[in-house]
């Protein structure tokens, strides 16, 4: 394998690190913010399931991202991932949680513009459409779960201490599901653009399992996500944890569950195939933003509780970040591709 590939891949891994730092906060930020679970415990669980999700369920969304812009040169892929990572990192420095999905879409469109390739507007519309449907769906799921839990509370006479222990276990389980969904849905953002030039050989784990070259690539991306989770997600958790809205442990559980459900809906190949086979409208296999899902869920619950507890100021800033992040990634990508091609003499597109 050419060592330069690993150098180029480093930008994808940097993006993976940003995703881990940023999006892990969405999976277990509420659990840690509400002081239900220790950071180290839930971070370890999340890392394991991100890897499983990415390696075994990451293929569906990667295809959609590939359809948006077929980044066909390694140096181009490097810059696309780097621009997205830089955009996310800059937003992260402000302490705001942003969408890696949006940043990578912005960067791919930037590459398309630079390379003069046509952007597949149907796919772009499909992806941009999910930026609205994802938080909306997440909000609806959160409201349904909230109402169900409230009803359940009335019927059950479980002791508060037992209930808190159950909630704690529930948070760990849903964080695991959320991490699996994040790995499956978002790995395309991290290393999707490198799939065309993937040089890896199948990786054998004795007779137990074999990973195909793409899965090896996904594994590397997932490890980068895990490093991001461990090293930088605490700061973002401080924002998502409790500053958007003061939340009880049960609400924290609902938010993680709603987010995981939505991410799974947008990345489940089996569900997609089943809906298609049953002639029902399908849910597109698109890497959606876990940030948007979690904000949607927080707003959903905030609204059903009368809308008083929501910190609209912070939500306004986050939504601004959603517009700024893809534009910033597009701009950085466009400018840097110019330098990469003309100053460093690299082939950034075929």
């Amino acid at each position, binding site marked *: 394998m050419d060592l330069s590939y690993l150098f180029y891949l480093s930008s994808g891994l940097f993006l993976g690190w940003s995703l881990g730092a940023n999006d892990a906060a969405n999976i277990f930020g509420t659990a840690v913010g509400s002081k239900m679970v220790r950071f180290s415990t839930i971070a370890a669980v999340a890392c394991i399931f991100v890897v499983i999700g990415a390696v075994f369920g990451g293929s569906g969304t990667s295809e959609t991202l590939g359809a948006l812009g077929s980044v066909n040169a390694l140096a181009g892929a490097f810059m696309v991932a780097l621009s997205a990572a830089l955009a996310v990192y800059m937003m992260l420095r402000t302490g705001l949680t942003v969408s890696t999905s949006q940043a990578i879409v912005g960067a791919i469109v930037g590459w398309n513009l630079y390379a003069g390739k046509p952007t597949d507007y149907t796919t772009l519309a499909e992806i941009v459409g999910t930026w609205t449907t994802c938080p909306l769906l997440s909000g609806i799921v959160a409201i349904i779960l909230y109402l169900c839990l409230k009803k359940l*509370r009335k019927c059950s*006479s479980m002791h*508060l*201490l*037992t209930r*808190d*222990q159950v909630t704690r*276990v529930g948070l760990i389980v849903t964080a695991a599901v959320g991490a699996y969904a994040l790995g499956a849905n978002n790995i395309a953002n991290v290393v999707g653009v490198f799939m065309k030039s993937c040089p890896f050989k199948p990786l054998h784990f004795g007779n137990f399992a074999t990973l195909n070259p793409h899965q090896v690539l996904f594994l590397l991306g997932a490890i980068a996500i895990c490093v991001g989770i461990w090293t930088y997600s605490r700061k973002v958790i401080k924002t998502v944890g409790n500053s958007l809205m003061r939340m009880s*442990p*049960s609400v924290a559980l609902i938010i993680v569950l709603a987010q995981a459900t939505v991410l799974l809906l947008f990345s489940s190949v089996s569900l997609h195939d089943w809906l298609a086979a049953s002639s029902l409208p399908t849910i597109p296999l698109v890497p959606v933003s876990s940030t948007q899902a979690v904000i949607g869920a927080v707003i959903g619950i905030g609204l059903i509780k009368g809308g008083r507890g929501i910190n609209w100021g912070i939500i306004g800033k986050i939504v601004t970040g959603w517009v700024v992040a893809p534009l910033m990634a597009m701009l950085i990508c466009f400018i840097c591709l110019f330098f990469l091609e003309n100053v460093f003499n690299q082939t950034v597109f075929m």
Partner: protein
Amino acid sequence: MFNLKLSMFSGTRELEEKIDEMHDQVIESVLAFQNAFDIYLKEKRSLKYRQASKKMKQIEAKGDELRREIESKLYIHNLIPDLRADVLQMVENIDKVINEFDEVAHKFYIEQPDIPEKYQGKFRKLVKEVSDCAENMAIASRAFFRDFTTVRDYSRKVYFLEQESDKTWAELKQSVFDSDMELAHKIQLNALIGDVADIADRAEDCIDALLIFTIKRDI
């Protein structure tokens, strides 16, 4: 892993039992106090009253022991910090109510105040209102762990009974000072009436904190 989970829940169950026992102590001290007061009105510092006062002391000691056990278990079982702080404060508040019952009963034993016949009815009324107040506080506090709606229902009762006890306290105090008793006697009775009425205030304080905990925990 499975054993770990089981032990986690069994530890919680043990803690739940201790908290339930703590509430039982409030109910017991209410009953013991009413009984002791009845005995005092009939027999003053008799042997029977001495036993009743001793019983109150035992309940108070048991309450203290339970409070300490709950405190250490709360930390051992690593409950959520937010809930842990609330439960700790609740248990301490409950313990203070139990202590007050014991202190007042002990004061009667030490000071042996003479309660003239014409004030006994009002005094009984005050003790009944204060006891009901503490009892309803215990029910509300116990309900906090299982049913938030009940907390609100019984909290209303506590507030109502506390207001009633305030009225009775004011009437009793006025009639004591309007009487032609010795000033020292008036002051002694006034202090004791105030001590009894303070138990209702303490119960009200518990409910104030409890309602805030309920709002915090409601989903």
